[in-house]
């Protein structure tokens, strides 16, 4: 079979749309990218390589150049390395964080980075393959793949699985509660006074049993705290343990309450930041997908 339209155009379009997709994906999830300009360069460069590999795949196969497949295999190898690269670098930075991301969040981010390169390739394969049939089809298929991959990358957010609302802080002796959920024992009277003055409480009511199990994961809760602190700041410092943000669950209801002593005591912003935290793949509860879990749910 010979192509109806030129392979140069196909490769060109695949390269452009694929690279564009990678660039868009850098921006979609800005929270995973706390302003490391050199990281942008690294990932964009890899994205261009991924797009190029995707773009040449279909034209090469049509030319009966089956060795092109080995290049794709090579590419996947590279992308796996991206994953460990992101994981390692975030892991190193973890030491310097006041409020850590946690292993689960780092693993989630690393996987997302790997997946983004595959999606880049999908976009460029779709665009270049369809271009060979007709240029308009190429643009259409590439754009469709792009929109789909952006939707795919969006993932779920905590606000979709739980009702997030402000919760009142109270002390009972040294014990800090948010509504009926016990959080911690604060010994120093001055620390209690500060927490009363500046602290904010949030309650997360899981919408179903899957959500309950997701919120039970300490990794998911650490991710929520990290994102909340990234948005509102924290009064904690090295050696100042009493302002450590915490998220604890009620053993009776599975409800999660968190306390944060932010630099910007804006409860609406805090609720928003908690809602927008991504649901981590590693923490996602799946109780309702099992027969026993469904039985137990009612």
């Amino acid at each position, binding site marked *: 079979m010979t192509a109806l339209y030129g392979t140069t155009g196909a490769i060109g379009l695949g390269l452009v749309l694929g690279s564009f997709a990678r660039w868009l994906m850098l921006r979609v999830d800005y929270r995973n990218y706390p302003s490391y300009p050199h990281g942008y360069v690294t990932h964009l460069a890899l994205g261009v390589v991924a797009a190029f590999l995707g773009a040449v795949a279909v034209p090469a196969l049509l030319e009966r150049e089956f060795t092109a497949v080995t290049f794709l295999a090579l590419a996947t190898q590279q992308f796996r390395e991206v994953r460990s690269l992101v994981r390692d670098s975030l892991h190193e930075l973890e030491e310097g964080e006041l409020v850590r991301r946690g292993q689960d969040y780092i693993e989630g981010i690393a996987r997302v980075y790997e997946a983004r390169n595959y999606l880049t390739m999908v976009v460029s394969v779709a665009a270049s393959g369809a271009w060979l049939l007709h240029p308009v089809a190429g643009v259409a298929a590439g754009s469709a793949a792009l929109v789909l991959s952006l939707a795919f990358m969006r993932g779920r957010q905590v606000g979709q699985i739980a009702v997030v609302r402000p919760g009142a802080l109270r002390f009972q002796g040294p014990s800090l509660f948010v509504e009926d959920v016990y959080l911690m024992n604060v010994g120093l009277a001055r620390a209690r006074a500060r927490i009363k003055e500046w602290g904010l409480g949030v309650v997360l009511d899981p919408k179903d049993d899957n959500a309950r199990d997701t919120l039970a994961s300490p990794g998911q809760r650490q991710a929520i705290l990290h994102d909340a602190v990234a948005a509102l700041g924290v009064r904690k410092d090295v050696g100042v*343990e009493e302002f450590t943000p915490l998220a604890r669950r009620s053993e009776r209801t599975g409800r999660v309450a968190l306390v944060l002593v932010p630099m910007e005591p804006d409860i609406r912003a805090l609720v928003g930041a908690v809602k927008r935290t991504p649901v981590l793949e590693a923490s996602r509860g799946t109780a309702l997908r099992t027969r026993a879990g469904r039985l137990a749910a009612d």
Partner: protein
Amino acid sequence: MDARLMKHILAVVTLDPGVVAGGVPVFVAQTEQEREEVAFLLGRILEAMVHDLGNGAYVLVRH
């Protein structure tokens, strides 16, 4: 890489030495104000959280 003792009682600050026994540094305070002050300083120095056991003793724990 520094190794640290976690979830370990690093020190006790108490009004009543009778409530503590065993191998842990105990700081006896005469007044509640002194207990608060000593516990605060130790908390900062040891990078530890101060917990109130409710029996007159404050314990310092690194989490």
